[in-house]
């Protein structure tokens, strides 16, 4: 499978060709052979993702806020999803010492790499927001999150001119992948990184983040689906490209076929 040399843009001709290919192929083979066809699958993916992301960005712009709720709207029980506790001795040691030795590393395309303790993060002006978390599976839960706006942390580190994305490296290995790429990570672009509701959260529903919800620190990127909200964040890396991270699609789930821009 070679990567497509073309940029992600699509033309009307490609749209029609893709649609025609799908319509022509549908009655021929079984449904699964259609789903497994690499060329058709790639065309469907490229057309859908480009359209979905561009139209959403057009509609919400940079600043539109996700809806915020009130205390009375909170889910009685916020579902723990994905990893409920990272494995390994390293995380256990951090947990045993109350994360006092934990440091968030901020590096990559920055002038001033940082190493921040939870106390450092808590000393920055916090933001608290009650938002709805929408899982890609279809369920939703409402929770209250407290943390530092990511923009603040990035600005402290001083991104260089070629900075384009922010990558979140996590402590949890969600899958024992044969190629060693089971480590959870996610990435967003600078539009979302500088959005006022994008925070590195250390608190949930008025308490410190629990292990199930990503202690000691997780991302909240409220205009996207749940899998973008990386838990157990250990390192924030500013990059110009995520092509060489993981399998190159910008996140654990994007590496497994899910949209990188998870606005729907």
């Amino acid at each position, binding site marked *: 499978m070679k990567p497509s040399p073309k940029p992600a843009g699509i033309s009307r001709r490609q749209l029609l060709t893709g649609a025609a290919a*799908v319509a022509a192929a549908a009655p021929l083979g079984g449904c699964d052979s259609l789903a497994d066809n690499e060329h058709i699958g790639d065309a469907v993916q490229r057309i859908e993702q480009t359209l979905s992301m561009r139209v959403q960005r057009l509609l919400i712009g940079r600043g539109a806020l996700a*809806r915020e709720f009130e205390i009375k709207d909170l889910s009685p029980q916020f579902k723990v999803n994905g990893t409920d506790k990272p494995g390994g001795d390293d995380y256990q040691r951090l947990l045993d010492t109350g994360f006092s030795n934990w440091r968030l590393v901020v590096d990559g395309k920055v002038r001033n790499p940082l190493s921040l303790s939870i106390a450092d993060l808590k000393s920055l002006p916090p933001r608290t927001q009650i938002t*709805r978390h929408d*899982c890609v599976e279809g*369920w939703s*839960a409402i929770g209250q999150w407290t943390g530092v706006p990511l923009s603040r942390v990035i600005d402290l580190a001083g991104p260089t001119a070629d900075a384009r994305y922010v990558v979140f490296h996590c402590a949890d290995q969600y899958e024992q992948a044969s190629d060693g790429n089971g480590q959870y990570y996610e990435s967003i672009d600078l539009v979302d990184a500088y959005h006022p509701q994008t925070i590195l959260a250390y608190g949930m529903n008025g308490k410190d983040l629990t292990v199930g919800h990503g202690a000691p620190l997780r991302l909240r990127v409220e205009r996207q689906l749940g899998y973008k909200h990386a838990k157990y964040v250990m390192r924030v890396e500013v990059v110009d490209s995520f092509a060489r991270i993981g399998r190159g699609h910008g996140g654990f789930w994007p590496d497994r076929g*899910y949209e990188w821009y998870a606005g729907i």
Partner: protein
Amino acid sequence: MSESTFASFTPVLVRRHSIVVRVTHWLNVVCLTFLLMTGLQIFNAHPRLYVGSYGADADRPILEIGTRGGDDDLHGYLRVGGLTIPTTGMLGVSKRNGETVERGFPSWITFPGYTDLATGRRWHFFFAWFLLFNGLAYLGYGIFAGHFRRDLVLETDQLGLAHLRQQIADHARLHFPKGEEARRYNALQKIAYLAVIFVLLPLMIVTGVTMSPGADAAFPWLAGVLGGRQTARTIHFAAAFSIVGFVLIHLIAVLASGVLNNLRSMITGRYAIVPEKSA
């Protein structure tokens, strides 16, 4: 009931469906088929429906497809409100390649047939875009070329209660208008088409968009109007099955009112009308 009954009367071929109606109709068939099958794949990832803004495992669903029992004794069920219906073989537990699997909707009605949420979503959104463009082309044509006014708006004589009652009775016995009356859509047909075109399909798109956290930031009032994201998801599901219901009735009507004539009219545009003896 078959066309040959009227063989002694020379059928008149009339122009029934314009090229735009025919093309958009068949594209819709492709879109809706994929949207349903990929939609059920997506639903299977969390086969429960809720009312309100939130809803997850710990919250009470209004509809649930589930599985209970052990390894060798699996039972599928559909629970709607307080009612539990055993659905083993169809919902909750079904066979795939001879193997018993725990699955919301069975393999044969989902796309792909195996469990793959990412692929299901990708194809769902692809065909959602396609449905939207196709729908806009059709709406533009309907408005500007007079298709809605000419073919779909109920005429005065079709609006009477007695007429509608007669139509319902005729449809129930699969008796459809013939002769001159067959030149236009009958009243129930028009009502059904109008409901699908102006209520169900727009509702599908609007509730689908409401589920998007991105679109929610753009149109925060949408979820409010619809009663919350999870309510929107429930309406999305209910509207989808209303469309399935429409398609089933539509197919029965197509079969019962002369399948070849109907198919020809939706492919070539020509529809045969058999003049009645007394007409």
